[in-house]
């Protein structure tokens, strides 16, 4: 197990290297002169020149990439063109709201989606199954911002159950934290719930027709244990896989959700940075999100072996 973990961690290094190269190249992939793009329409030629120098654009690409990479490895993501503050510092300040939102979304999504999928598979063909499937199709086809605005209008503006927008740090109390994040997490989670519920249902349908489920019933195992112990554990690998893949969409959705609910997180930071063409900040955030995604998928890989003993390290 330990050796496997080490191997998996090492295997992420080339992935991260490619990600880093891509993130660094962002500036150059965009068409036109990066310095002019950053400087914007109203910039004087002197401004453009100053930016060109500060970015070191006059030196060879590979040299600059290597230097940048070394600094990144030491935790130095550069300095924001707009605020002149260190990018790593700016991201750090915004991490808590974003991670809070994602964590709560995951918890809500899993605790709803998995029972829903299991129930739909068990009651296949009944109105319960159909209801779950209708919800799954809807949750998947309505965009996050629409769900967000509808939720905010109904439950915050009309019913006044939750704050309309904003964020309250965990340090100021769990209740405030939760009530601020509840609607955003539901909005962000609706597509995720739909995705996981569908894959859970499909996988469970297949598992429930297996011989070992019949064996469990023949032993006198009750319905709940048949579903949630004997069957669900066999359905775990596809479900975890889809969670890992869906995490990318969750990151993208978080950026939108933070804008809708005015949550001062990394998503808002990157949206602002894009509007200001603050490339070091954009690079830093993209790098951080990519890193998170790689880590999540590393965890997914390790979880496979926990749920399925046949998967060899």
């Amino acid at each position: 197990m330990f050796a496997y973990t080490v191997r998996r961690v090492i295997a992420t290094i080339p992935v991260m290297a490619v990600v880093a190269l891509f993130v660094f190249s962002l500036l150059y992939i965009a068409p036109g002169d990066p310095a002019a793009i950053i400087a914007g329409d109203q910039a004087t030629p002197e401004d453009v020149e100053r930016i060109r120098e500060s970015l070191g654009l006059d030196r060879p690409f590979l040299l600059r990439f290597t230097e940048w990479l070394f600094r990144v490895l030491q935790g130095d993501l550069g300095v924001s063109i707009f605020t002149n503050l260190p990018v790593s510092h700016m991201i750090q300040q915004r991490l808590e709201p974003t991670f809070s939102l994602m964590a709560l979304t995951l918890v809500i999504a899993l605790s709803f989606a998995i029972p829903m999928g299991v129930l739909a598979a068990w009651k296949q063909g009944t109105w319960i199954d159909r209801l779950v499937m209708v919800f799954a199709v809807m949750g998947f086809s309505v965009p996050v911002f629409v769900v967000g605005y509808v939720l905010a209008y109904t439950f915050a503006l009309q019913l006044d159950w939750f704050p309309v927008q904003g964020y309250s740090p965990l340090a100021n109390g769990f209740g405030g934290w939760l009530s601020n994040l509840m609607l955003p997490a539901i909005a962000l989670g609706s597509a995720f719930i739909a995705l996981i519920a569908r894959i859970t249902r499909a996988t469970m349908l297949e598992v429930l027709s297996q011989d070992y489920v019949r064996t469990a019933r023949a032993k006198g195992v009750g319905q709940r244990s048949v579903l949630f112990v004997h069957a669900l554990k066999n359905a775990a690998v596809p479900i975890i896989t889809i969670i890992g893949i869906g995490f990318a969409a969750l990151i993208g959705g978080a950026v939108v959700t933070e804008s809708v609910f005015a949550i001062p997180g990394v998503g808002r930071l990157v949206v602002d940075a894009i509007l200001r063409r603050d490339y070091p900040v954009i690079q830093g955030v993209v790098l951080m999100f990519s890193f998170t995604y790689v880590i999540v998928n590393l965890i997914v890989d390790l979880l496979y072996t926990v749920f399925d003993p046949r998967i060899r390290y």
Partner: protein
Amino acid sequence: MPPLLEVQNLQTHFGTLDGVVRAVEGVSFHIDAGETVAVVGESGCGKSVTAMSIMRLIQTPPGKIAGKILFQGRDLLELTEPEMQAIRGKDISMVFQEPMTSLNPVLTVGRQIGETVMLHEGLSAKDAEQRAIEMLTLVGIPAPARRVREYPHQLSGGMRQRVMIAMALACSPQLLVADEPTTALDVTIQAQILELMRDLKTRVGAAIMLITHDLGVVAEMAQRVVVMYAGRKVEEGSVEDIFLHPLHPYTRGLMGAMPKLGSSLTTTGRTKLTEIEGQVPSLRKPIIGCAFAGRCPEVTDVCRRMAPAIEEKAPAHWVACHYAARAMAAA
């Protein structure tokens, strides 16, 4: 004393898109305590469905079960699902044909055996593992203390079937339903598993309903035989009756390749049911006349028009054939 299990006029039908499949059509038989009864017949004649009906593991709908299944005097078809759960695995347990797929791949062997005793005898997880080790020892698995922690994929097919048997016997059931327990195994392993079942039967004292294709297995294991065809019981009798004086042409067809007379009871060579000419009738349509008429070498007009009733032609020897008397005279 009433029999341990008494199946009365069992009918199990399945509603499908293209009509009702009459998988079991009016089958009656009984099993006494400690007795081994073999159920034989070609594939598709309703043996498994009969077994699954007794366990009440048929999904309803699409399935529909009618008749009576009296177990220790109680009709299993009248019980609620929780009452039935208390019986499954404790009083009646089952071993399936497919050892490779019948064990849960993500749970340890010990967990799967132990679960039964935790459920039915309220044992703690620790005691359950101890029982699992005892059961593995009983079914002759070496290094049981290590094996309980292993997963099914780490065991061979024969080992897995031993685990299935260990699981089935963990609560000392009154009745073991074994649905072709050796069909999927190599010949040498088959012999070992049968040996094991015979040995355990004398120790645990369970009655066995043994479903099999294999007449050699019947001769070695059973006291009585039920012959099924197209969802019906066509003949029933002691092993001697069935092997030495088969009264139904279908039974005689099955025996076709068997060496004649008493030698068949002692021979160890296994004989599969021989192929009988012709097709098994469709179970989707009601069958008029004798179900075997289409394939019977001795068929007459009467057979095609009228279904023969099942009658006791000799003591405890039942047969459903218009010409059973003639067969008896010839025997």
